[in-house]
């Protein structure tokens, strides 16, 4: 592990003493510079079943809290626009379009009666269409719904997700294709909408579809022995590499990979951390994010209270940083640096290269439980 990190530091040009580091890396894990006016936005919760979309600045100061009718999950950001989409976590019924500066509600989305939202949404690069993963529960089929933001967020189409239990989705580079993590879990509102009904037969996959036609372009699954690895979260690097985090539905002491890297057209490559880190991941990955350089990706493991970091070029494990109940991850504009949030209320700046973790200095964000995902809005 140490050897891998040393090699990685060389590649990143971080081989010498701290004082010789490039300025932007030397600043990492220190108090954010004044010019860093990025805003971070996430679903959150209070202590009394009260749920919000909340935003804070780079220091952790809360900027707004917008109450939600139920627990949120991820936030979709509309490019070059004030809109952000907050979709209720599974089995979700509502979606709200909010003003990213104030949290004000700009539009409401209603899930059809025979569908349930699954918490994730993504906009097309031109900002016109919003894509949301949904469950067609009567047919145990995942779908991606399409909403026209320029027509009052009218639901205009629905595509097959080519799997069951679709969860996170992203645009591929170029913006014409969507990659979908089909978790493989069939749920039904008659059984609370969250309990998995097909653990023995689940078949997760990663699928890429054309966002205009819904046509399947690529698909990959793990080998059958690992069919209980629910592929739930992913991120896409600028070069098209997809990093995915798994949630294992089998036994707590089974030895299974929890991270995969996929180059579309090839097999998913499962990768593992050293044993003493792997077991602390507790069979569960919560979110996945590439850094600004695309050379590092972070995967949070809230059950183990860890964020793991991986070299995107070699697929080697780099390091891990403890983050109690940490799940939300967003890349800052600095290589190897992330902001992470916790269900216990913490917010940290984490540097995967120098293995540093610093609490965000403003305590106002500590009043909330930060939910699964965190997004960064560039100033």
């Amino acid at each position, binding site marked *: 592990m140490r050897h891998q990190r040393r090699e990685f530091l060389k590649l990143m040009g971080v081989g010498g003493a701290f004082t010789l580091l490039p300025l932007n890396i030397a600043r990492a894990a220190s108090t954010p510079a004044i010019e860093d006016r990025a805003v971070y936005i996430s679903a959150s*919760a209070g202590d009394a079943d009260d749920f919000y979309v909340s935003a804070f600045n780079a220091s952790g100061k809360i900027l707004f809290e917008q109450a939600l009718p139920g627990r949120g*999950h991820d936030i979709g950001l509309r490019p070059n626009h004030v809109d952000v989409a907050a979709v209720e*976590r*599974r089995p979700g019924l509502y979606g709200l379009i909010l003003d990213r500066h104030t949290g004000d509600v700009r539009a409401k989305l209603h899930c059809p009666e025979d569908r349930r939202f699954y*918490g994730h949404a993504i906009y097309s690069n031109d900002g016109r269409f919003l894509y949301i993963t949904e469950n067609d529960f009567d047919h145990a089929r995942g779908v991606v719904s399409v909403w026209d933001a320029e027509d009052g967020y009218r639901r205009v189409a629905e595509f097959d997700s080519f799997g069951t239990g679709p*969860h996170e989705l992203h645009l591929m580079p170029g913006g014409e294709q969507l990659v979908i993590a089909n978790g493989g879990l069939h749920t039904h509102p008659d059984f609370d909408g969250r309990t998995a009904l097909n653990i023995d037969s689940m078949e997760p996959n990663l699928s890429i579809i054309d966002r205009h036609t819904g046509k399947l372009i690529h698909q990959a699954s793990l080998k059958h022995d690992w069919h209980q690895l629910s592929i*739930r979260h992913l991120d896409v690097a600028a070069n098209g590499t997809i990093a995915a985090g798994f949630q294992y539905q089998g*036994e*707590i*002491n089974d*030895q299974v990979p929890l991270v995969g890297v996929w180059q579309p057209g090839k097999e998913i490559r499962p990768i593992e951390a*050293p*044993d*003493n880190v792997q*077991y*602390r991941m*507790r069979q*569960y990955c*919560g979110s996945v994010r590439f850094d600004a350089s695309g050379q590092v990706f972070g995967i949070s493991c*809230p*059950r183990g*209270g860890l964020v793991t970091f991986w070299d995107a070029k070699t697929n080697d494990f780099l*390091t*891990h*940083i*403890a983050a*109690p*109940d*940490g*799940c939300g991850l967003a890349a800052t504009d600095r290589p190897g640096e992330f902001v992470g949030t*916790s*269900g*216990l209320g913490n917010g940290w700046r984490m540097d995967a290269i120098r*293995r*540093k*973790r610093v609490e965000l200095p403003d305590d106002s964000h500590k009043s909330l*439980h*930060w*939910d*699964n995902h965190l997004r960064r809005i560039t100033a």
Partner: protein
Amino acid sequence: MPLSSSWRITLLSTAAALAVSFTSQNAQADIPDENYRPALDHLLTKVMPPKLDDFHDATGDLTKSITDFCASPDADDLKDVQEDFHNAMDIWQEIQPWRMGPLVAKGRDQHIEYWPDKHGTAARQFRKLLFSKPASYTDPVQLAEASAALQGFPALEEVLFDDSNIDHLTKGDEDGVFLCQYGTAIATNLQTITGELRDEWPEFAEAMATAGPDSMDYPTAKFAATDLYRALHEGLLIISTQKLGRPLGENEKDAKASRAESEVSKRSLRNVAHNLTGLLAIYDGKWGDVGTEGAGLASLIDSSLLDRSFRLNWQTVTDAVLERPESIDTLLAQSDGYQSLVDLKSQIDFLITLVENDIGGTTQLGGGFNALDGD
């Protein structure tokens, strides 16, 4: 009174008492982080190290007895080797649930005991091994690089307890000679692994016990203590779902003792009894003649009623295990054996509920917002 009725009454009456105490702890303020430190220090630096010494000594005794036996194979001496196997296995089963640090590093827990073996890998590889008798498997150094399924307790159990192998061992025929050399290599390898475990533990324990904001591994004592709570919780889950659940199968017709742990040596429930000893030590702080009563996670429980109730329930379940035969195969052969095993699993499941709701809640180690209900 039938056993199943009596334990239900005991456990349920205790549960009612616990409900009262749990209600009162909801309003409890956050436990100061420093309060977790004494339990951490006690369990990791005072309780566990002597047990790792014992484990290493036990594998040393096992190595010596099998070496002595192989010099002059004899049925009585084989019994001594089997006894030393049981002694080493007893202490391993107490340590096994402490799944953390050096115990899981480098696949050590799997190298010590490759189980559960869902695909029958060990048996398949063992048959091939006995057929081809490769010399590399009689060298402990080379064995350490071999498949985990062929280098720990389950493989040694096959050597020492399988009827056919016992026959070869005591006759000292060609198979017996290979089995002797292979068994000695396994025991020697186990002695090496347990030595590494003992040697690496102090550094790990120090990192946990001195948790603080500068640590990238354990930023708070509470976070470090969470790993001990998880060991307690997951240890019970593994007993329920795997050690008992696997042999139980879907129903009585599907039950199969061979899916249980250590059934070749007929000790699957003896393993559970020793697991419970090691797990209770996490809560109590006393483990046999080591440690201090009340200095484990129990030191974080400020309700004597909850503490007494939990201990009573634990003792009830321990007694239930000890009242049954050591082997699930023997138990299932009894007319009410299946139901007896079902009842035992229910009792373990009840303990899991107590750990989740009461111990996890009162110690505030039960998990956070995302850990408990993420998506």
